[in-house]
């Protein structure tokens, strides 16, 4: 085991963990803001119930995202110090903007969103919720700008041994950034929607909190109906962008070995063999890859053998992750149409099969996002900044036992963290929303501005 490998495992481990949390919170923040806004507009308490319920899982997810994110912001320096020296002048300012325009905003208004129900009016509270949601989206903007720059660097100069910015607009809006941002934001909305859908479906299956679950499931299904197909289209566009700027990554995703391949088939399954530079057990649809990626049957695609082995990414993880992501994505599109179809006339609420599938699909968005992230990040190897900086060049000069120790610490800590997270998440879901029947009776005849307050007081009496 060398320092480079241990550092990479550590970074992969900590970043994989971290990404789970913002993926859930970005979409959930938007949904919560939507429900709170709908409540203000319609005064239908069901929406307030939804917002207030989902704020709890949101809060523990957000907290876990914050603490695991701090780790990352220091890991660049501790484990990849040469990297931060080489590209710090480009990436440092991007991350500074992330902190200035997003992290502080989220943190500043989160307190009001979580604890401010009795301290501020309902409009101001809604404002805080919206600001938190906007903050999460802004944070995605900057971190994806930084990540995209590492994939498709632009607008830089190399001066005195450092990559320095030459044109900021080009640095931020680098060639892959728009696709990546759209793809990731859609992924977070889909993740949150399938989370809400799955848990609502579970309530329906259990026969509890029916009205609450129907309303939540309904919102989630509307979202996926529009966004799942949109995501398929954006993903396709993103793929074309990868073909243009990172053809070797695309070759690994598709499992294409020859230096060039026209009439390329779409490999549904294969076992890539990096030693023999070929695939085993191929199942392919003829011409389809060429058709999708070049919009012509005999379009030419660049293959892995067009570059020497040391310039190729690990093929297996990229190839399989890509299939997991696309497979889940297609399943989401199918479910979006099917579940919405079944909802007409309320058949869905009794359709135990569909509800069960939705429950299984609770983590679908998360798994797909993680898989997609692996395609992106492993597919960029052996480069840290595509074509410019190799990963092994920039590892810190550290004693191996020190990195082994830190890796061990992070493994244990994150396992404990995930145990606690799952334990309390389950607890919150099992507890469920508060009983509406009793509360609704009290809401009747109350003046609008006051009743949020009374409602909260009642919740507290309920021991909530």
């Amino acid at each position: 085991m060398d320092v480079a490998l241990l550092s990479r495992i550590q970074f992969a481990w900590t970043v994989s963990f971290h990404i789970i949390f913002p993926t859930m919170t970005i979409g959930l923040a938007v949904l919560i803001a939507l429900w709170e806004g709908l409540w203000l507009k319609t005064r239908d308490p069901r929406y307030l119930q939804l917002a207030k319920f989902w704020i709890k899982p949101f809060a523990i997810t957000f907290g876990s995202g914050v603490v695991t994110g701090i780790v990352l912001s220091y890991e660049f320096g501790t484990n990849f110090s040469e990297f931060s020296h080489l590209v710090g002048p480009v990436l440092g300012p991007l991350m500074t903007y992330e902190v200035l325009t997003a992290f502080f905003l989220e943190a500043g208004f989160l307190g009001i969103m979580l604890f401010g129900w009795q301290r501020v009016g309902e409009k101001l509270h809604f404002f805080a919720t919206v600001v938190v949601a906007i903050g999460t989206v802004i944070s995605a903007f900057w971190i994806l700008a930084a990540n995209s720059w590492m994939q498709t660097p632009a607008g830089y100069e190399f001066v005195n041994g450092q990559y320095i910015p030459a044109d900021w607009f080009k640095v931020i809006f680098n060639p892959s950034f728009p696709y990546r941002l759209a793809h990731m934001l859609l992924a977070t909305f889909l993740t949150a929607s399938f989370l809400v859908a799955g848990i609502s479906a579970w309530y329906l299956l259990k026969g509890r909190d029916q009205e609450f679950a129907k309303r939540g499931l309904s919102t989630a299904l509307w979202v996926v109906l529009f966004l799942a197909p949109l995501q398929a289209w954006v993903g396709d566009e993103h793929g074309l962008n990868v073909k243009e700027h990172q053809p070797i990554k695309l070759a690994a995703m598709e499992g294409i070995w020859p230096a060039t391949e026209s009439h390329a088939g779409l490999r549904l399954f294969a076992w890539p063999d990096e030693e023999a530079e070929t695939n085993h057990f191929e199942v392919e649809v003829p011409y389809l890859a060429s058709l999708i990626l070049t919009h012509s049957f005999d379009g030419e695609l660049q293959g892995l053998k067009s570059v020497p082995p040391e310039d190729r990414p690990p093929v297996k993880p990229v190839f399989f992750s890509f299939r997991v992501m696309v497979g889940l994505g297609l399943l989401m599109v199918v479910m979006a149409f099917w579940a919405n179809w079944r909802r007409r006339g309320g058949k869905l609420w009794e359709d135990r099969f569909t509800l069960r599938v939705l429950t299984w699909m609770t983590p679908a968005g998360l798994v797909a996002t993680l898989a997609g992230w692996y395609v992106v990040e492993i597919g960029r190897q052996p480069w840290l900044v595509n074509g410019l900086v190799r990963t092994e060049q920039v590892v810190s000069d550290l004693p191996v036992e020190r990195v082994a120790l830190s890796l061990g610490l992070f493994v244990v800590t994150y396992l404990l963290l995930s145990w606690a997270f799952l334990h309390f998440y389950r607890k919150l879901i099992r507890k469920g929303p508060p009983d509406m029947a009793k509360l609704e009776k009290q809401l009747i005849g109350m003046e609008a501005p006051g009743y949020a307050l009374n409602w909260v007081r009642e919740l507290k009496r309920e021991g909530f």
Partner: protein
Amino acid sequence: MELFYFLLLGFAILMYVVLDGFDLGLGILFPVFPEQHDRDMMMRSVSHVWDGNETWLVFGGVILMGAFPAAYATLLPILYLPIVLMLVALIFRGIAFEYRFKAKSSRRWWDLAFGLGSSVVAFCQGLMLGSLVESGGQTLLSPFSVLTAFAVMAGYALLGATYLVVKSSGQLQAKARAASKPLLVAVMLAMVAVSLWNFASVPSVQAKWLANLGWLWPIPLITGAIALVLWQGLKRSEVLPFFCTIALFVMGFLGLVVGLFPQLVPGQLNLFEAAAPVQSLKFMLPGVLIFVPLILGYTLWGYRIFRGKVHDFEEGY
């Protein structure tokens, strides 16, 4: 421009130390407040702000990376172990905020995570400060760095105790007041010891102070005066002790920076050598000038919304 970012970095660190200082301090004080009810109140008094306070730590990190990449690349590997330990401890104490109030059987473990976690964070930060000042991070665990580590812990604890005086009432407040006194004595002793030791053992610091004694003498003098006001204030005022403690931190920080300036990694890098190219510094400038005042504004507003004492039935979410 390098100077501006140096000041900004200093400001970020100071903001972090003062803000996260008081919520870390409450954790450090946990052993002195064994009762569940007291601990509930202590954590409630900061549960809406700890996240924002910790953001200053991230801000310090990215400013260092963006404006002084060479220093970031040099320092972080040197300080590897205390940084990793600090990050792990930050994770435990951070999630304790989320889970402690939802836990029943595991509550004492979350108490431990918050209390011990906060102490470890403070200790590591002190250790890093000490070894940095003493040797540019070359000797991590030396008598001097351990002394600064305890000094930082005592300082944070004092911040926490005086913050608690502001946010609590009755018995809890009396306890916080009582705890503040020995802490103040400890902090003052530690400040004197650290200053003298630093002065005696680091030639560059010594030279700097001796050459500029003409205008530097007010720093220790004002520090002493603040400590006296604090001591008096502990008897009757609610808010004075907290703000005096903050002032103590500002003075201590000033004293340290004066001795080090213009070095970023003592003995290795000064701020001009470590600075990023002017393009990077320029790009960040509008962001800093617009957003830092804005952040200070809404942070202050947030504190105003939650002003007053923490009560038994503080609203949850």
